[in-house]
């Protein structure tokens, strides 16, 4: 199997990630005070997606792992997007 490398992330990075996640949480709450009508859910989902991306990249070490893991994540996300598209082929054309 492929060679293993251990990457140690400094605490400072984790601290920044935590602060960023908290900031985005604050932003999620803040935008609920603004009337965005149909975009409300979209904005909330967009912020949540960015947060999930940060968690995957740093806390789940995707940035430091082999490209195989990145392929897995991208593949899974692609399947998820296709599931949504095919489901919408029902809801948008009824």
């Amino acid at each position, binding site marked *: *199997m492929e060679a293993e490398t251990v990457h140690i992330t400094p605490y400072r990075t984790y601290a920044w990630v935590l602060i960023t996640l908290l900031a985005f949480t604050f932003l999620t709450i803040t935008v609920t005070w603004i009337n965005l009508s149909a975009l409300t859910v979209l904005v909330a989902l967009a912020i949540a997606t960015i947060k999930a991306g940060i968690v995957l990249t740093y806390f789940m070490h995707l940035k430091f792992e082999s490209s195989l893991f990145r392929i897995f994540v991208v593949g899974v996300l692609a399947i998820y997007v*296709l599931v949504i598209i*095919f489901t919408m082929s*029902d809801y948008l*054309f009824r």
Partner: protein
Amino acid sequence: MTEEKTHHPEPSYLVNTGKYKGLMSWLTSTDHKRIGLMYMYAMMVFFIVGVLLGEIMRLELFRPGQQFYGPQMYNGLFTLHGIIMIFTVVIPGLAAVFGNFSMPIMIGAKDVAFPRLNLFSFYLYIIGAGIALTSQFMGNGPPDTGWTFYAPYSIQTHTNVVAAVFGAFVLGFSSILTGLNFIVTMHRMRAPGMTFFKMPLFPWSLYATAWIQVLATPIVGITLLMVIAERWLRIGFFDPSLGGDPVLYQHLFWIYSHPAVYIMILPAMGVITEIIPTFAQRKVFGYRAIAVSSLAIALVGYFVWAHHMYTSGMSPTARWIFSLLTFLVAVPSAIKVFNWVTTMYRGSIDMKPPFLFALGFIFLFMIGGMTGLTLGALATNIHVHDTAYVVAHFHYIVFGGVGFAFFAAIHYWYPKMYGRMYNFKRANWAFGFLFIGFNLLYFPQFIIGIMGMPRRYFDYLPQFTLGMQLSFFGGILLLIGIILMITNLFSKKGAIAPANPWGGRTYEWTVPSPPPVENFEVMPVMGEDEEPYDYK
């Protein structure tokens, strides 16, 4: 890969060497082979219960009108039959039993990547099955929704849906963890030199299966929790009276439950791909095509779910898209069948029981697959949707396919599991009863389905009587076949099995029968010019 070792100083995995004796030594064992056998014993019990429930339904259907019990009990019976057979037998099925028993040996590993997690998966399986079964005897009577728990009825019925749904939820976790374990095992623990394209094809099929288990099962998990939330908290997800959309339930349910059909059938195809080259003594034809078609089935099979919903009020656009995708998934399935047949061509066929069951699988699976296209086509689907035709189709896939592959697998790996042979003549007789009984039971359902007999009805019009009675007698023959097979395999010990009774070429036939605890005395290394099926 053919070197045999008949003498081994290490005790076999069946001998207790740990802290505990008897049952506890099994229940605390993290050995993948013991866990595989524990799944098998549990599944056999559930299978027999499921078969008996099916026979009780056939008994009621012997004549038109009420014979022994009323429609509410009939609804409860087919729900219980479906829950047991789908969630506790065929979904874990071959992957949990033979994937656990054989896959680590076939790839040259001592065990799976996470042995404790593997045992935990088994416990979850037992707990989930226990919850689902006890739901029948608690609360306001057994669930009567069918195994699909369709909303809004599953939200509105007063029967004990929540416990059954929660049982299925727990069973889903068992499936996810097994899938995760297998993916990591196949990525990290293959023998040195065994690249992915040198891995035997049963592990390949398990790899594709495992991805579906990991990616699709959480969707049904959350959907089932949404049903519970809707029943308890009155959140309007699916019930129109609460502002929900019942078609959304069907989407979410089938996004998992159609790929679940591939969770069942892919390992079955993998087993057949092992058996045919062994008993034809021929190198498997189109190795790469079979390997890649497993992944293709897993991938395309993920996007065909809504062919269960053509009559549910879905948009016409979605209908033709899903019909097209359904026809596409037939292509990789057909690739496998053509490759099996071509592997047999000019082979030295040895008609032993595992091969006989494998042939039975191909025949029945083809009927199941082709009739699936009738259902996948939009126009014909409208005519046969929710009729006995569908019952016949999915039993040809799930019993004729998965069931016969399971029987083939147990006759194939039995000598390796127990170090004993079984009586071939009785096994052949059992096959005869099973094959004839199966066809007599389910083929008439195609015909009465086309004639208009709806599924899940406890009563019927007089013109369906002959079909129903033929099915009843088929069910009896099938039951005799099952009893013959089980007594042949488990009632008395046969002759001692050699390490390689069938002349197989994969790693499990290089280790003693039964294998030692850690499978290999010397860990195997695959040479550059070696292949998994180097017959000729």
